[in-house]
């Protein structure tokens, strides 16, 4: 490209190669067999894709709230990077969920036109950990540390899922999540070791997110059924591995594992506890999706 002509280039046709990072996301999945294995319940698989897709979408939304508000410019770049990677994972998984469902819903219909109770993300991803009143940078890092350690362990196993699409999404995600976990671990150590004040903040941040960790390792019936046929991972089997990682990081930061217990869950008519995987969310979640969905819902028929 000749720089004196950079401006004129806009009038050329809209060729995909002109974009910084492409407009689609078919590349990571190109050539992947999209047929659902014959012994797998497609309703379950669609729900599972929603669960993992919603986890990524909702945390991406939370992290993007930091944009232009990070403690330093380098961190603005890093948090946006993590939010973008998670958004990319969410788009592939929501698209896959819609495709399996076969009712014509694409990623946007799923992200923008579902109600609160139809989202299947774990509550950890939706909690306000700052920059709003619900937290601060340390809380955000605490959440990212737990979330990325868990999702990395999960993705590493999903790489050998019998569903080729899940396996391909996971293979891409593993690299991204390894960076995220490393980033969060480094900040946990810096803040834990840095000053008296930063140590207090880090401890408070871990205390804030810790009650939401149990849910990560509680299997939903959909996960149990899909794990039995080699498609999903039973999250309970990840616990000791993730605990080991967290203990290592906390140890390096000379921080103790929080002692706060998990929260009691909302109980349904059958007496069973309900959580994010069942569509039961925190009060803050309604505001999060109201903000996310507002324009898309208020301009019906619009094309973006």
């Amino acid at each position, binding site marked *: 490209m000749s720089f004196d002509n950079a401006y004129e280039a806009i009038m050329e046709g809209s060729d995909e190669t002109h974009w910084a990072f492409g407009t689609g996301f078919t590349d990571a999945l190109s050539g992947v067999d999209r047929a659902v294995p014959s012994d797998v319940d497609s309703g379950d698989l669609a729900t599972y894709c929603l669960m993992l897709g919603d986890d990524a979408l909702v945390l991406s939304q939370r992290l993007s709230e930091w944009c*232009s508000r990070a403690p330093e410019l380098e961190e603005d770049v890093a948090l946006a990077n993590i939010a973008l990677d998670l958004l990319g994972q969410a788009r592939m998984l929501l698209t896959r969920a819609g495709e399996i469902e076969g009712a014509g819903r694409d990623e946007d219909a799923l992200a923008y036109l579902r109600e609160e109770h139809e989202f299947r993300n774990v509550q950890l991803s939706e909690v306000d950990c700052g920059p709003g009143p619900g937290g601060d940078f340390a809380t955000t890092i605490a959440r990212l540390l737990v979330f990325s350690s868990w999702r990395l362990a999960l993705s590493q196993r999903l790489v050998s899922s019998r569903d080729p699409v899940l396996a391909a999404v996971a293979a891409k995600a593993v690299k991204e999540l390894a960076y995220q976990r490393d980033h969060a671990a480094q900040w946990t150590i810096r803040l834990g070791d840095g000053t008296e004040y*930063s140590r207090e903040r880090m401890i408070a941040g871990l205390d804030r997110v810790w009650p939401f960790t149990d849910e990560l390792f509680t299997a939903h019936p959909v996960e149990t059924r899909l794990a039995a046929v080699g498609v999903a991972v039973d999250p309970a089997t990840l616990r000791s591995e993730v605990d080991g990682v967290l203990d290592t990081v906390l140890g390096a930061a000379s921080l103790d594992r929080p002692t706060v217990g998990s929260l009691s869950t909302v109980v349904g008519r059958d007496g069973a506890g309900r959580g994010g995987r069942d569509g039961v969310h925190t009060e803050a979640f309604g505001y999060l999706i109201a903000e996310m969905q507002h324009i898309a819902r208020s301009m019906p028929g619009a094309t973006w």
Partner: protein
Amino acid sequence: MDEELQREFDRVVAAEQRIEPRDWMPEGYRRTLIRQIAQHAHSEIIGMQPEGNWITRAPSLRRKAILLAKVQDEAGHGLYLYAATETLGADREDLTQKLINGRQKYSSIFNYPTLSFADVGVIGWLVDGAAICNQVPLCRTSYGPYARAMIRVCKEESFHQRQGYELLMTMMRGTEAQRRQVQDAVDRWWWPSLMMFGPPDDASSNTEQSMAWRIKRHTNDELRQKFVDMSVPQADKLGVTLPDPELRWNAERGHHDFGTPDWDEFWRVVKGDGPCNAQRVAHRRKSHDDGAWVREAATAHAAKRAAKESAA
């Protein structure tokens, strides 16, 4: 001795070669460059806000990804440019203090509000577009680190511009309400975009010396004309009208004639009375102040680690 150094400096600049950080340079050149590059860096950082305002509400996941990547790029531009000022002996923290205390400026364009998602597209098309017009010549500017930073920045800005224009094209093919949003955004951003090139040449103080130093290569009015000439066919293709009744092709000049921006408004906004000046600076100040304990912790941790390593 100084005279000899000055002669060598003048020779290098006149020969269109680069001045590098270790080379001798006149104090005025160094001061002017620090001010110009810092102002540019501040603009990148303040510029994250008006568009960042729409990330959490972007109406499709693809647009959300594009917008997030764009605003992230702007943070990156700020980083390259602050790094370029550091090669001249400036300090990022000091420059940031000057920004949040109002002692250094940033591009006034960001003191206008973004009122609909169409503004995201119009900022890409017109504001990134005007920035490209201003910045492309700086890829050949005399100070090496600045020129190299600008090459990278310009490449990315041109993606931003395409993305903005493509969003507008898509919206114009959409509903009537979307077309109205696009036209309204064009109406609000056109004149401020023309003002991005700075005051008219006869009212611009630093142009002559900066041209001699090759840290500015075209006058404000030349760049403004170029921008108008390039934007008119793009507006046609888009199907919007530009809010200037005097805008018409002048075959004799081979350029478009156009109206005079409201320079009183320009100076009011520059002096701090734009719709968002106070808000933008307060946002930057709050983020910077809220992050102070994090930066202190990182510094303290690094010092402890260095102490441990040297003890070991």
